[in-house]
């Protein structure tokens, strides 16, 4: 074990020896779980939304696929968009590498590869979710008139897993790599959910601010579990307020800024740093976080929210790649 003092702190962090392959697997296990949970929530919320639509408005399932960034794949696989198809595609489709089904399979695959690094409790919970999604698949949940129970179970299963992970795993490098995976995925999903409004059509330009518009914004907040906290902080639902909350809020745990703050912190815990950067991963994440930290929602709206979010997603991918190059790439560590 290598001990490193954190400057200005009396806590001594213990850096466990951790295989690069293992760090990579913990990172991805957490990303996939976060992804599955987010997908389950998107689907649940959109299902709810579809029940409350005014009579002249048709259900919208395409924006959901657009949110995930997998529209192209969907379009090649299917020639029809409806509730059943989209639920199947996002939740159960084995051809969709990001479906809940595949995310959970891959999360468990990663967990198996690092079985000695996680606790029995975490492992048992992963198996629970694994059999849950397999059962959902064999029961053809997407054909049910109301599959929301299934989504709730997945959501709760993933949340419980994150809770067990936090409550039973020592705060060694492994835990921090897991956190970084989870937070990067979460930031990505929040940015994508916000972007969905760009794809949701309003019947007429005058409909901005209408009850239907608000219904959509409310659904959007609920998609990232932000409705209650937003109400508490801001009260009134406005596009600019909601966007600011999801991008720049410093205390809401799913805002893009907050995710990056914590991810950066975990990165520092691993490297022993506290300011600036000592490797490309710290540099990339630091710059992206600062960009949000000093961001101004009016400027963002002025230059275009959709473009801003697009740019964010590209940069977040670069962060992820930099983490891989710095810590997981076997070729690099050998040097």
């Amino acid at each position: 074990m290598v001990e490193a003092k954190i400057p200005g702190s009396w806590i001594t962090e213990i850096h466990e020896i951790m295989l690069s392959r293992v760090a990579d697997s913990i990172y991805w296990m957490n990303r996939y779980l976060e992804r599955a949970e987010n997908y389950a929530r998107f689907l649940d919320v959109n299902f709810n939304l579809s029940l409350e639509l005014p009579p002249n408005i048709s259900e919208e399932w395409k924006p959901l696929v657009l949110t995930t960034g997998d529209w192209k794949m969907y379009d090649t696989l299917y020639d029809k968009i409806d509730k059943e198809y989209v639920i199947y595609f996002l939740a159960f489709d084995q051809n969709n590498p990001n479906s809940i089904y595949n995310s959970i399979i891959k999360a468990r695959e990663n967990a198996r590869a690092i079985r000695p690094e996680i606790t029995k409790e975490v492992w048992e919970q992963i198996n629970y979710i694994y059999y849950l999604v397999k059962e959902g698949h064999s029961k053809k949940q997407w054909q049910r008139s109301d599959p929301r129970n299934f989504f709730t179970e997945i959501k709760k299963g993933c949340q419980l897993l994150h809770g067990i992970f936090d409550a039973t795993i020592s705060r060694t490098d492994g835990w921090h790599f897991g956190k970084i995976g989870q937070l990067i995925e979460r930031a990505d999903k929040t940015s994508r959910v916000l972007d969905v409004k760009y794809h949701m059509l309003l019947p007429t330009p005058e409909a901005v601010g209408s009850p239907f518009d608000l219904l959509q914004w409310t659904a959007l907040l609920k998609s990232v579990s932000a409705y209650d906290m937003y109400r508490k902080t801001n009260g009134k639902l406005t596009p600019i307020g909601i966007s600011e909350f999801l991008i720049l809020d410093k205390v809401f745990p799913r805002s893009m800024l907050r995710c990056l703050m914590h991810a950066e912190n975990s990165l520092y815990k691993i490297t022993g740093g506290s300011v600036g950067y000592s490797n490309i991963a710290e540099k990339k994440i630091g710059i992206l976080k600062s960009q949000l930290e000093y961001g101004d929602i009016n400027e963002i709206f002025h230059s275009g929210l959709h473009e801003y979010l697009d740019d964010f997603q590209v940069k977040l991918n670069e962060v992820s790649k930099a983490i891989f190059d710095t810590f997981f790439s076997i070729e690099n560590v050998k040097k």
Partner: protein
Amino acid sequence: MAKIDFTTYDTNGFYDEMVEMDGKVRPHYALFRERLQKMDWKKLNFLQYSTDRAQLSLGMTFNVYGDNQGIERILHLDIIPRIISKQDWEYLEKGLRQRIEALNIFINDIYNDQKIIRDKIIPEELIFSSSTFRGQCIGLNPPQNIWCHISGTDIIRGDDGSFYVLEDNLRCPSGVSYMLENREILKRTFPEIFENLHVRPVYNYSHHLRDMMESLAPVSPASIAVLTPGIYNSAYFEHAYLAQQMGAELVEGRDLVIKDDFVFMITTNGLQRVDVIYRRVDDDFIDPNVFRGDSMLGVPGLFEVYKKGNVVLANAPGTGVADDKAVYAYIPRIIKYYLGEEMILPNVQTYICAEKNDLDFVLDHMHELVIKQTDASGGYGMLIGPKSTKKEQEDFKEKIKNNPRNYIAQPTINLSRVPTLTENSIEGRHVDLRPYVLYGKEINIIPGALTRVALKKDSLVVNSSQGGGSKDTWVLDN
């Protein structure tokens, strides 16, 4: 709901571990059966159901070979335990101790002085033609001259009630995780029975395993790793489980590199040295520079480091020569030669096809013998005479004639049976027994074993890949 009832239980003439021929319960099973009879079917079925669930949630699954991408199965755990009396266990322990000690000296001799060959106890060509003999190991001196650190010997009980050794597994025997996890599950299934029967604990196996590894290490404290072929290996669950229980690092070949004559793990903190490797990768695959060149599972240069004494491998490479099924026939002579003792735990009578007289006998009696390939395991490459067709027998005859050295034959032995839960009844099913022996500073035999059970009615094949399940094995202390 009907209570569990043994009045119609039939031994069908086989040796039954629970009852004698006349249906009288054997003393060491009395308490268990009495408790079981107080239970109703609903409860028993529920206990079995909970056991299946527990195995799934523990992820106690294995991949079947040739079925790479995904179908995971659980090894069915039948909740009725196999109970071994104190007396039987003491005998088994003595026999195993003697056997492992002799086999270890044998391996050391084969790779060094070869006295046993010079003294003409065992034919030279039998050793050098063994596919598990490793010429690369000649001249090797592992720490304390211990080669087979971990072994799992397959033992059966015949109709006559005697135990026989069926196979010595001296390479990478698997199944010990099932011994440990089955116990954890059964403790939850029958808590009150455990309280009243004195079942000897097995939980300290992983402590002993770790202590044994540390005792071999060139330095202290030692850094220990378990080397696995990866998650698609059928025994991956066990590799991960043992690494975790021992607090060792679970590594794949790609996690290791050789530098300056030492072995290192590639970590997020740079390279870290490894001193002892419990390798669950076969000899052929551990080092492509020395063994199979196409292996992707091993570490190039590992064997060289091992020879220099800078890393310990458990088991040592080359131990397979002693569990070759043709060498098996010589074990009574091997024990006598090295220890000057008669063999305590007998072998099953074995015909060596490499020897002319035996070969003729085997070819004439295909229909009543079990014929085995000398270097195969896991129930593969064998023919069970009485259960085979004429066509299968003819095909096998050809194989034997083409390569007699590669085959042995044994009489069909009716394995003993243990009551086993079936759909709606309790019936006898055939079992074997695999205790685990650790050999470091001393020989240590954990009082427990993996009992494998042939779940199919009348089947004698207990292998997990072919319809076998498992039972918890209780060794009693009084």
